[in-house]
């Protein structure tokens, strides 16, 4: 029981000097199995599905999951603190509608886009204030703002679609990196994922988020500004949802109030699939990225294999349930076995 050398798990393989240190912050549990599942499904799809393993298809895949990925990043942090934000898709829609409206009004996109991001941050701030200052449960708050923001989107733009954006933007949004089939947005996502990953796993702030999610009381007793941290996360989520809104609008070249309706459930599903506990305190950003890509890969592969969309829906749901049920049952079985083993064998 008293090991003289209290050492870390043997997980990180020897590599460049700073890698293990960074990786050490990433607990290796659920997320490794998600990454494994991703790897397996990519391999299986490459072997079994015609047209999957091409650069062009990879590009399509990335564009398909781009918006979900962008929002899943801050959502991971929010859920790690034990809160949730269901208003993200509506924030995306409202951003898109405002973008369209301002464009109709003749503003320059270079001005509109920052305004939209600011708007997203403000919408997030509203969620955050309701949760932290008014102390309302985030689930209820964001169900409310989900309806409110989507409603405002319709108020702003009605049922119209604004579509006459310059090609340099709409085409640019889906453009690939020179000489590769990879859309440049992949780089943006990777960069932001790295930023959020470092923030969550390798900074004091990130550390405090896990503490908040596991036990907000203990976190407060440790001097962590619980409410302020949550507030910032909601702001960041709003801003990222707005960024996704701008991207979405340009990707499809169409600003509409109903853009991305229902996307919040996809985002939450991807985050949970990635191993984040809905009760907070547990989760890792790489797992979430794997979760996003896993959902995208399965969708893409099944579509290419001409599997009808209803099957896709079922698979998405089953995946989500199985990803939580199986580890749960395994853990309980392990616990059960451990208890039965340890019980009779206690030293006198």
């Amino acid at each position: 029981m008293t090991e003289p050398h209290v050492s870390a798990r043997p997980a990180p393989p020897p590599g460049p000097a700073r890698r293990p240190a960074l990786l050490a912050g990433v607990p290796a549990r659920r997320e490794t199995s998600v990454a494994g599942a991703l790897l397996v499904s990519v391999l299986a799809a490459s072997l079994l599905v015609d047209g999957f393993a091409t650069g062009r298809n990879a590009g399509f895949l990335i564009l398909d999951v781009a918006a979900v990925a962008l929002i899943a990043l801050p959502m991971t942090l929010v859920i790690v603190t034990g809160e949730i934000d269901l208003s993200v898709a509506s924030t995306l829609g409202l951003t898109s509608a405002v973008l369209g409206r301002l464009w109709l009004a003749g503003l320059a996109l270079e001005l509109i886009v920052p305004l939209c991001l600011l708007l997203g941050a403000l919408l997030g701030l509203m969620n955050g204030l309701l949760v932290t200052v008014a102390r309302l449960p985030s689930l209820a708050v964001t169900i409310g703002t989900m309806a409110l923001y989507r409603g405002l989107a319709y108020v702003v733009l009605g049922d119209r679609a604004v579509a006459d954006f310059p090609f340099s933007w709409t085409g640019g949004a889906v453009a690939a990196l020179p000489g590769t089939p990879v859309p440049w947005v992949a780089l943006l996502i990777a960069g932001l994922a790295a930023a959020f990953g470092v923030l969550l796993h390798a900074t004091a702030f990130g550390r405090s988020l896990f503490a908040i999610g596991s036990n907000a009381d203990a976190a407060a007793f440790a001097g962590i500004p619980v409410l302020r941290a949550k507030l910032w996360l909601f702001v960041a989520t709003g801003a990222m949802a707005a960024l996704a809104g701008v991207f979405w609008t340009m990707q499809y070249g169409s600003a509409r109030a109903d853009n991305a309706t229902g996307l919040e459930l996809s985002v939450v599903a991807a985050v949970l699939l990635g191993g984040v506990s809905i009760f907070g305190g547990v989760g890792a950003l790489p797992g979430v990225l794997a979760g996003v890509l896993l959902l995208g890969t399965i969708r893409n592969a099944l579509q290419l294999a001409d599997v009808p969309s209803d099957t896709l829906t079922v698979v998405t749901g089953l995946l989500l349930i199985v990803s939580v049920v199986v580890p749960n049952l395994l853990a309980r079985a392990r616990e059960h076995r451990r208890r039965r083993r340890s019980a009779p064998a206690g030293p006198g």
Partner: protein
Amino acid sequence: MADPSPPVPPPLALVEVAKSFGTVRALRGVSLQLRAGEVHALVGENGAGKSTLVKTIAGVHRPDTGRVEVDGTPVEFAGPADAQRAGVAVIYQEPLLFPDLSVAENIFMGRQPLRRFRRIDRWALRERTRALFTRLGVRIDPDRPARGLSIADQQLVEIAKALSRDARVLVMDEPTAALSGVEVRRLFAVARSLRDSGAAVLFISHRFDEVFALCDRITVLRDGGHVSTDPAADLDADTLVRRMVGRDLGDLFPRRTTEPGDVLLEVEGLSRAGVFTGIGFSVRAGEIVALAGLVGAGRSEVVRAVFGVDRYDTGTVRVAGRRLPRGRPAAAMAAGLALVPEDRRQQGLVMELSVRRNATLTLRRALSRYGLLLGSAERAAAREWTERLRVKAGALDDAVSTLSGGNQQKVVLAKWLATGPRVLIVDEPTRGIDVGTKAEVHRLLADLAGRGLAVLMVSSELPEVLGMADRVLVMHEGRLAAELPRGAATEESVLRAATGREAGVAA
């Protein structure tokens, strides 16, 4: 155990019951008979296994080995419902109430009186609750929700709940901790009448006067093992203490002589509406000051407000002369204040996180370099402090929940000592930890005070208060009732001030 088994099998007996939680062995082969018509006391230090024993009787825990017998027949309680059906009623240390439901419903949950078609008879529900409260001599509206009841009232509702079951075996786990003298006397009258009607009562308390006043036999537990069971008449308090502690008291509390230095913590006129009023005191460098009082007197609330976890309405808190802003634990920490909270599992630790993460939770900023918090720095800091405090842990990356209570408490202490505090506030520092670790914690506190820290200690254990403190502050109902220097602090004087029977030196 000398006395022979009575001819009638006892309504409830434990036979060689053992129970472990992970590496912690909470009970090691304990046997206990609760006879009809007796009040049986169970005493032991915190962490001796009393609560585990109670939960085994209640059907919450199943013994790893050994068995529970009802009327001489072995039974297996699959859950609390089974135990209840067997006639066991338990009053837990922590009231288990449903805050959203009415008091009456709380008492009769699952056993509400029924009318035709198995409908709940509200009128009878209310009347029976009234009758119970009359019997206990308390006035609580049966229709009010449990949310917002004071601790004492919650305790009374729990007692009423147990009474309502007409139990053959009634277990009371520290029922008097929050009660006033009158209420205690009434409770005893009820317990005696139950006994006289043939029930077996198991009574757990830290207050020896109560134990001797009420109980027929006394069982002592220590470190999860059975020490003795004797008729109360054959025992005295000193013997009991010796058996509970397993050594002389003197060993527990290190002797120290330090000259108090400058005032490091100064609290003036601290009030929070409905919680505490006009609290003022100071703690000097090198001094250990105890804050004593009954459960619910507001002690923890005061130190929480001082540290900034709770807000307060008026008053000031100064650390080394500098005034702290309200409600900002981070600022308090920066000023050199540390608080080891009362509830280790809920407030002191993040149970799901590793030892390493917990030990460095207070050092997040200090350990960051260029904004990045690297695992290596974290590990080094964690190792340093866990080694200094001799934390027994499998690996630093193990979840802190796998440690024993004592080692968990050391992790909490490590986490706070790592911040290099000037004022250390400890709230119930030895609750629920074994005797050995307890002594270690006491030595550590003495040592820290010797090195010039100001220590403010909230404790409900009188021996600890008397053994450790240079001065004792006693709180009663949200006010400071007395300030007693070491010489004047005795069990009696502290208790008297804590129960409000006599004002001491007003603070």
